Structure formats: C-alpha cells, structure tokens
C-alpha cells in the first residue's frame, strides 16, 4: 500500500503513458492519434515535474526564512518540452488538414499504404 501511495505521481505517469501509447497505436483516426501522442508526452512532463519536488521544500523564490527549495530546473526543462509538444501538435494537425484536403479522409484504414498508390500521370 505504501508503495502505491508514496509513488502516486509515478503510477499516474505510467498509467497516462500507457493510455497515450496505446492510443497512438490503436486509433486509426489521425486526430485521435495526435491527442494520444499529446497524452503520452504530457505524462513525461509530469514525471520531470514530480522529480523536481523536494519534500518540505518551498517554491523556488529567494526570500527570508526559507532555506529549503524545490528544484526549479525540471520546470524550466519542461517549459521547453511543452513548447516542443505544442509545436509537434500544430505540425501534426496542419498535416492532418492537408491530408483531409488531399484524400478526403483522415482515417488511416481508408487511406492505406501510400506506396501502393498508383502513380499519378
């Protein structure tokens, strides 16, 4: 029981990561794939943030009377990673829009393998 509770964040991370990863593989719809990918990435962000928490530590702002701070570095790293995640989602959605225009659908199963598509004249 204590194992589950004391590592609560990490269990959430594992759970979210697996839900996201499964979704990326299992969904045929490209929008759902991107959502799952977002979930997968977010779980990693939570992992970093959780690692930065120091038990009993205050917010990392210098002020009188506080000696113990949480580690701010993971927050900064994840700020960068969030930007990367947003950019990935944006590029992915832009591609999905273009695919919708070109193929009329964003269902992977309906499109099939592009290498088998006949050459356009």
């Amino acid at each position: 029981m204590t194992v589950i509770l004391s590592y609560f964040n990490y269990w959430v991370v594992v759970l979210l990561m697996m839900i996201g990863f499964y979704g990326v593989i299992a969904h045929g719809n490209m929008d759902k794939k991107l959502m799952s990918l977002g979930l997968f990435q977010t779980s990693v962000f939570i992992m970093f943030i959780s690692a930065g928490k120091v038990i009993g530590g205050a917010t990392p702002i210098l002020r009188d009377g506080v000696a113990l701070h949480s580690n701010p570095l993971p927050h900064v790293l994840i700020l960068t990673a969030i930007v990367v995640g947003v950019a990935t989602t944006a590029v992915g959605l832009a591609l999905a829009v273009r695919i919708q225009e070109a193929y009329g659908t964003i269902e992977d199963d309906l499109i099939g393998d592009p290498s088998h598509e006949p050459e356009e004249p």
Partner: protein
Amino acid sequence: MTLTQWMPFIVLMPLILSGVSALLPGKTAPWLLAFATATASTILAALVWLGLGPEPMRYAFGNWAPPMGIEYRVDHANALVALIVSGIASLALLWGKRSADQEIPERQGIFYALFLLALAGLLGITLTGDAFNVFVFLEISSLSTYALVAYGQDRRGLLAAFRYLIMGTIGATFILIGIGFLYMMTGTLNMADLAERIPAVADTNAVRAGFAFIIVGLGLKLALLPLHLWLPNAYAFAPNVITVFLAGTATKVALYVMLRFIYTIFGGDYSFGALPLADIMMVLAVAGMVVGSWVAMFEPNLKRMMAYSSVAQVGYLVLGVALVSIIGLTATFVHLFNHALMKAGLFMALGTVMYRTGSARIEAFYGVGRQMPWTMTAFALLGLSLIGVPATAGFVSKWYLIWGALDAGKVWLVVLILITSLMAVVYIWRVIEAAWFQAPRDQQSPVAEAPKALLIPLWLMVALNIYFGLDTRLSLGAAEQAAQVLLGGF
C-alpha cells in the same frame, strides 16, 4: 575572435539566417542565402576540425560556466560529423536549385528557411555537450524535417510526413524519458558531468532503464531495423533535394548521438556490460542488412529502393559498433563518411532523371541510359561505390568492416557482408538493365539530357566517391581519430 569563439556559429548561422530566408521573396534570393549559409558552416566546421588539438574545444553559452550552463564541446568525433552534415547540406543545395524550382513552385523562402532550421538542428545535436540540449535540437530538426517531407506536390508525402511525425515524436519522447531518469539519478545534464557521476549510481534500475529508453529512442531516429518503418516512405515521397539532404545526414547524426551516449556518457564497459547490447545490435544490424537489401531487390519505386538500401547501410554502420573494437568503430566512422557521399550522390542521380521524367518508377527509367548518358553513367559509378568495388569509397568501408569481423573471429559475418553486397549488385543492376537494355516506353518524345546545373554537382559527387576510394588518408585518418576519441572518453 578565436576559433573557439567562432565555433558556435556553425550552428548559429543557419539558425539565425533561417528567419531571414523566410522573409525573402522569389526563388533565387532564398536559395542563394541558404547555399551561402551552408557553405559558410562547412568552411567553419572544416576550420574547427583542422584546428582541434588533443583537448576538446569548449564554449560556454552566455558565459554561464558548465555544468550549470550549456556548453558546446567539440572533439574529433563530432567535428567530423558536423563537417559531413554541413558539407552534404551544401552539396545538396548546390545540386537542388533546379530540382526545387520544379517541385516547389511557390513559397520557396519558407522552404529554404525550414531547410536551414533542419540543418541547424542537426548541427546543434552534433556539437552540444548537454544532454537536454540534444533533445531540443533533435526536435528542431525533426519538426522542420516533417514539414519538408510534406512540402512536395506528391500527396503521398503528406502521409509519409504524418507517420514520420508520429514515430519520430515517440522516439524523441523516449529519449526525453531516458534523460529524465539520468537527471533524477545524477542531478546533472552536462555530458561530461554525467560521465563522472553515473558510475556511482550505475548499478540501479533507473539508470539501466534510462539507458534502454535512450537507445530505443535513438534507434527509432536511426531507423535500425524493426524501427525503420518511417524511413522508406519519408525518403521516397519527399522533394528530391530533401531526400538527398536527409539520406546523407539524419541517420548519421542519430548514430553519432548513440555512440556519444554509449561510449562517452555511460562508458563502453557499462554499456556493453549492463545490457547484452553488443548481441542485440549485432542481430538487428544483420537483420537490417539482409531485410533492407532483400526488399530493395524487388521494390518498383527506385527512391524507395534506395531508401531500403539505406536501411541496409544503417545495418553496416551498427555492425561496426556491435563489433566493440577500435577497428569496428573506425569502420563505422569511415562508412558514416562514405555512405553520406554515395547515398547523397545516388539520390541526386535519381532526382536528375526525375527532373526529366517526373517519376521514380522503374518503368520510367526504361531506355534512359541512351537518352541521359551522363546522368546514368554517374548513377552506375555511384552504384559501384555502394556495392563496394575497389577504387571507390564504398570499398574502403567494406574492407574495414570485413577486417573488423575477421579480427573478432566472426567468419560468418564476412560471408553475410559479401552476400548483402551481392544483393546490392542485384538492385543496382536492375536500374542499369532498365536504363540501357530496355526500349523507352514512349518512343515519340525522348527525354533530353539533364541541364548542366544538375550534372556538375552530380559528377562532383562521383569524383568525391572515387577520390576517397583512392586516397584514404583523409577519410580514414579522420575516422581513426574519431574512434580513438570516443573510446578514450572525455
């Protein structure tokens, strides 16, 4: 300014000027800017490579002293990779003007801006001495590559780019998880610092898991066999300039980062001891060599064929690593150099034919040998280099790989290398046969020889392939230095 202060500009020039390129109108100005930038980076990378002493060249960004700040740390291994990447980028651009004008009729400013961003990302991964910085530059290069793959007029490029995005992001996130584990255990992101602190915590599951995540994530970027699925379509349906550029650079950089993690950060003894890494790599490399060559023999789309051949070549590269010897590692670096030259050249040749015929199907190559003799002769010579015929660059790499395999006492590997080389003969011969021994499909409208703007860079690649096949001092010397630096640690 000293050379050390100039060194970061290898990355900064393409990074900053990509913004300028996005604003430039027309077709000539952005290309000229991109080409000038890539060439300047190449020259600077060459100067840095020549100017390196026994100690690595270090530059701390913003004067924040490492390990707190981000530092660039250049030794003989990554200076060589940076030189290859920027050199191939300039050669691809030199060749690609006409091809890009045809395939990308409008908004070329953005196109070249993305190209420069991808180049900056790849160079950044190569030069940085900070593990998290690797992730950031990896994503910079990957995101711009996804957009570039989708930039052509072929709608299949969109699908290829989307699938590449999904797989590439999973790979990059795996690397992020791995770096996260290492940071939790050591409290540092600086590579040299990591190398110092890991031994104390090496025998924990967190470090082992981090190592495994990083290797799998980089394996995805490297297109090592079971993780190669994104590569064939991305190469086949991207605009030709981009295929030339990616074929010579993207997988090479991923391999370099993998070597950096294996040897410098974790240390060779740990990497090959904690996990059965050498055995896994050996199996995957051999499988990649065989499967890649096998599929290439039957692939009707020639750009896809060459992409599968790249999967096989990645197998050779990883095989050199899996031999865990100085000869094997030297073979990997020589092949890194040579394969960039030959595969970029081969894709240039295919792109030159496509400039005239508009298709990469093998039927479109029927009779092309007589109509475009210069292009197809170049293809044949580059093909010989890929096969590994003596007096070409490819021979040097194969020679070293076979030597490494014999040194490790693995005769069966030598047999496999020879068999896969024979498979390369088969798939190169298919093209030669189609080009010279088949009648053209359309007798009425023969295609003309390609313009000189495409032919001259193509023949430059042929010349380089033959030069580095005859005079190996430069390539081999550089590869030996790189291998020694990696084995020596920081």
